[in-house]
């Protein structure tokens, strides 16, 4: 799995280098047009997270296999990103971004998160081809740029269930003034090339999963409204499901065979609808986000999440508070076999682990202590449905579903 993504990375790198070289020589050939420029950007976070519970591990998102448990760790939030933009003209630009963070590779190996060429024939249209950010939710394509938002991280209950960072494909955006505001619509399509950690030291490979989606945006003064939808068609089976699915299909029970079809991930679809309202004027920032997930696999339950955030700047300090609640619908099927049958027990466990239910209340403060750097301190109290440990890692069976998390983060850009 690692090898194929490396191969893609090398290919993307080579294509981008060619493009960069072409754009650069083009820029020189046309007499060094005023617009031609290479821009290097860096963003990063030094973070420490303390989890008071010694019965469960805390993670930032589902790409991380482990995290702090009864102590401190720098793993969840620490990251470093580098981005090079090569601008040929107001119409043509290329970008390459590398990101190093703790994820499914269990180390900080940098990954290529963006590698695209952008063509903007006029201020209305923007077309991009290559590896682009996953723009299904508001803020989901800048989820690793801590300096760009108020809390230490984007909460897992809202953003975590579809933790894609990028797509290999393209997008097209059209924008235009409408009324007193600016309206835009974006369509995107591509294939995923990432993995999710599903616990028990197992990764689910999203590689080649087909992704399509859109978003509608309207900026009106201090208000920003957004509606989005996306669909992922999974194209791989989870290794640890293979035995269970084969067993259910071979059991001779028609009900069990149909349970196998209901659980299977390969070929199943995950659809997400989301809406956001943001108000941002002067010192006040407020946002309310909602999303609804519909799936056709019982291994990943239907669900909904709501996320509200309020912040108010006072000088260089911006205190904030937020509430986020992810709810799932428990769905199960009868295998037609005795409930003590190992296949029934295994199926029941899949249904239970499909539940993503957790709510978090947080308070924090962001301190902009110098240009292009901030310091954040955040206190969170999380409560999971005690049978639902999907957002956490390595939960002890006697974990009561609660944890208090303290985070300190230093974000910077330059």
């Amino acid at each position, binding site marked *: 799995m690692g090898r194929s993504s490396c191969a893609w990375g090398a290919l993307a790198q080579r294509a981008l280098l060619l493009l960069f070289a072409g754009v650069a020589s083009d820029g020189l050939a046309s007499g060094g047009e005023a617009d031609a420029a290479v821009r290097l*950007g860096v963003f990063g976070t030094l973070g420490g997270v303390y989890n008071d519970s010694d019965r469960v591990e805390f993670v930032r998102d589902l790409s991380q296999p482990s995290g702090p448990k009864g102590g401190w760790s720098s793993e969840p939030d620490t990251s470093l990103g580098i981005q090079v933009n090569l*601008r040929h003209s107001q119409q043509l630009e290329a970008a390459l971004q590398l990101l190093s963070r703790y994820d499914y590779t269990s180390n900080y190996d940098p990954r290529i998160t963006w590698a695209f060429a952008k063509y903007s024939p006029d*201020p209305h249209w923007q077309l991009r081809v290559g590896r682009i950010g996953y723009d299904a939710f508001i803020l989901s394509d800048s989820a690793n*740029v801590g300096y*760009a938002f108020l809390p230490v991280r984007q909460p897992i209950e809202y953003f975590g269930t579809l933790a894609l960072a990028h797509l290999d494909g393209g997008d097209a955006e059209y924008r235009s003034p409408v009324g007193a505001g*600016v309206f835009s619509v974006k369509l995107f399509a591509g294939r995923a090339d990432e993995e999710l950690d599903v616990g028990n030291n197992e990764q689910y490979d999203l590689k080649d999963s087909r992704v399509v989606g859109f978003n509608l945006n309207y900026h009106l003064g201090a208000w920003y409204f957004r509606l989005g939808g996306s669909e992922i068609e999974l194209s791989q089976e989870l290794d640890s499901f293979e035995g269970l699915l084969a067993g259910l299909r071979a059991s001779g029970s028609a009900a069990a065979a149909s349970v196998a079809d209901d659980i299977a991930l390969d070929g199943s679809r995950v659809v997400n609808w989301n809406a956001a309202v943001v108000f941002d004027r*002067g010192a006040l920032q407020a946002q309310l986000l909602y999303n609804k997930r519909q799936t056709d696999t019982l291994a990943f339950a239907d669900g909904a999440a709501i996320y509200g955030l309020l912040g108010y*700047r006072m000088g260089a300090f911006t205190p904030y508070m937020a509430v986020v609640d992810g709810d799932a619908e428990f769905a199960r099927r009868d295998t037609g076999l005795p409930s003590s049958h190992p296949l029934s027990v295994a199926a029941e466990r899949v249904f239970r682990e499909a539940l993503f239910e957790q709510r978090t209340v947080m308070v924090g403060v962001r301190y*902009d202590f110098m240009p292009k750097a*901030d310091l954040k301190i955040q206190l969170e109290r999380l409560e999971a449905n005690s049978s639902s440990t999907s957002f956490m890692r390595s939960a002890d069976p006697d974990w009561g579903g609660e944890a208090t998390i303290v985070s300190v983060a230093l974000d910077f850009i330059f």
Partner: protein
Amino acid sequence: MRYLLIILLLSTSMVNASGVGAELVVIVNPESGVEQLDRTDVINIYMGRFQKLPSGISAFPVDVAGDKSVFYQQLVKKTLPEIQSYWARLIFSGRASPPRQAQDSEEVLDIISNNKGAVGYLDRSLVDERVRVVLSFPQ
């Protein structure tokens, strides 16, 4: 009434003397085809929402080092860290390029007089015939 006027005049002249009341104006190239811009146009251009002048030309904004913080305070009531944080999101998601940075008034006048689509800002007293004033912020 007369006393009130005198007090008002005195207070504004004092503010001007201390430099706090420096009047920033938004400027464009005289050949841009633009006579004036409203605040919404300027917000759209500077916040990367929609970068096109009413005359149809693609707009590109220019920031000026010394006046930047007063400009954004007047335009959107935001501090520079807030503006930088906002742009970090657009830049590192690959969606837009930030305003070009000019070091001083001479550089912004130079950029604007050489680019039809350039938009900048400056203290009114430094404006010359190379550029056109299209918006001033009420004091």
